[in-house]
């Protein structure tokens, strides 16, 4: 069976060729490009040739079968073409969809491909999340340290007020006060000790008080 050279899938104009070649042309077509009209053309050609064979009963028998086969072919071609038409519409819709998404994608260039665990941050939002967990931890630890220092100082003040520690600034009183502060929370006003104290304290208050 002769086949036309392979064409691109979307050969919407193939019927013209068939028309040009007359009803015989349908027999030369690719089975995938047959239309219902082609099947009618084939029926016409086959019918005409059967007629020419005369009225032999065997021919008549054969004719019934051929008619049946042609009807089947008609149904298949019809179905096939409908399916092709549906798929074509589907394809066109999808193409439009892709086009639309591409346009949106290029319009919003800052949008990144996000996994399920990711989130988009609006950089213009003044309340956007921007500090890390560690920073929050550090701030809390600092706050806790300051708060306990405040409490110590408040108690100390109360000690002075209640006369437990004499208000004079003599060396004795001074020392007593220092011991009190150091004993109460390991803190000290001494600047040099601050880093060590800070470590000590963060250990005490954060992890194991």
């Amino acid at each position, binding site marked *: 069976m002769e086949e036309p050279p392979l064409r691109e899938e979307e050969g919407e104009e193939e019927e013209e060729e068939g028309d040009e070649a007359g009803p015989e042309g349908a027999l030369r077509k690719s089975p995938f490009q047959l239309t219902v009209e082609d099947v009618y053309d084939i029926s016409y050609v086959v019918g005409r040739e059967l007629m020419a064979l005369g009225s032999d009963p065997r021919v008549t028998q054969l004719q019934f079968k051929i008619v049946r086969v042609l009807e089947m072919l008609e149904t298949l071609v019809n179905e096939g073409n409908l399916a092709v038409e549906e798929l074509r519409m589907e394809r066109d819709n999808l193409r439009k969809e892709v086009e639309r998404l591409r346009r949106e994608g290029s319009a919003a260039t800052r949008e990144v491909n996000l996994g399920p665990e990711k989130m988009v941050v609006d950089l213009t939002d003044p309340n956007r999340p921007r500090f890390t967990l560690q920073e929050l*931890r550090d701030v809390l630890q600092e706050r806790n340290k300051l708060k306990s220092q405040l409490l110590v100082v408040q108690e100390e003040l109360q000690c002075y007020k209640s006369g*437990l520690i004499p208000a004079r600034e003599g060396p004795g009183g001074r020392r007593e006060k220092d011991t*009190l502060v150091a004993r109460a929370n390991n803190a000290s006003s001494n600047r040099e000790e601050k880093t060590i104290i800070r470590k000590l304290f963060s250990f005490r208050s954060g992890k194991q008080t």
Partner: protein
Amino acid sequence: MRSSLTPLGPPVSRDRIIATFPKLKEHFHGQVSAACQRRNTGTVGLNLSKVVVVGDLYVGKTSLIHRFCKNVFDRDYKATIGVDFEIERFEIAGIPYSLQIWDTAGQEKFKCIASAYYRGAQAIITAFDLTDMQTLEHTRQWLEDALRENEPGSCFVFLVGTKKDLLSGAACEQAEVEAVHLANEMQAEYWSVSAKTGENVKAFFLRVAALAFEQSVLQDLERRDSSRLQLGTGDLIRTLPETQESKRPSSLGCC
């Protein structure tokens, strides 16, 4: 009342003085009373004992603590960020004693921060909202998380129902049946409180303080005893069963 042997810090306020054991039993553990009378409580008076308060967001952990420590109630809700703490000073059986009460955030997102503060707790307070039984159910998880960071058997556990003022007597009783049931399961002591009216708040914390104090003194005695034993003067009678009992208070519904 104040002894010359307790020089640290200013006098505590009158309502922070615990002379007799609050609730459930009349007296301090025999060894504890004796130690206190002899002023033989080692470093207990100098240390801060740690109390951790956990539970769902908006059950009123902060309100509860603020009612006790500052005697205030703020109607507006402000979520706790990470953790906060208050220090409350007591005088128990004549000995100064301090609790550091850690207030943790109930919001899930702060859990990883707050859980770092669970360690070394002497008491764990799991709070729930009496008007929201879901929060009661969640206390299991909160307790499990808090216990994981601590030595088994080293913490007193309290289950506290909050917002008691919002419920009628009957509704409260109904909620408490479930709560007491869960408290038994958790081996926790159950309390219901209202930070708004202040009902039971002080009594509850005095109870926490007394139990923690007693445990601290006993642990201190035990520590010193065992080091003495190692030195070879093994003439000591340990009252372990009794110690154990006081460590794990029997759960009771109250109020």
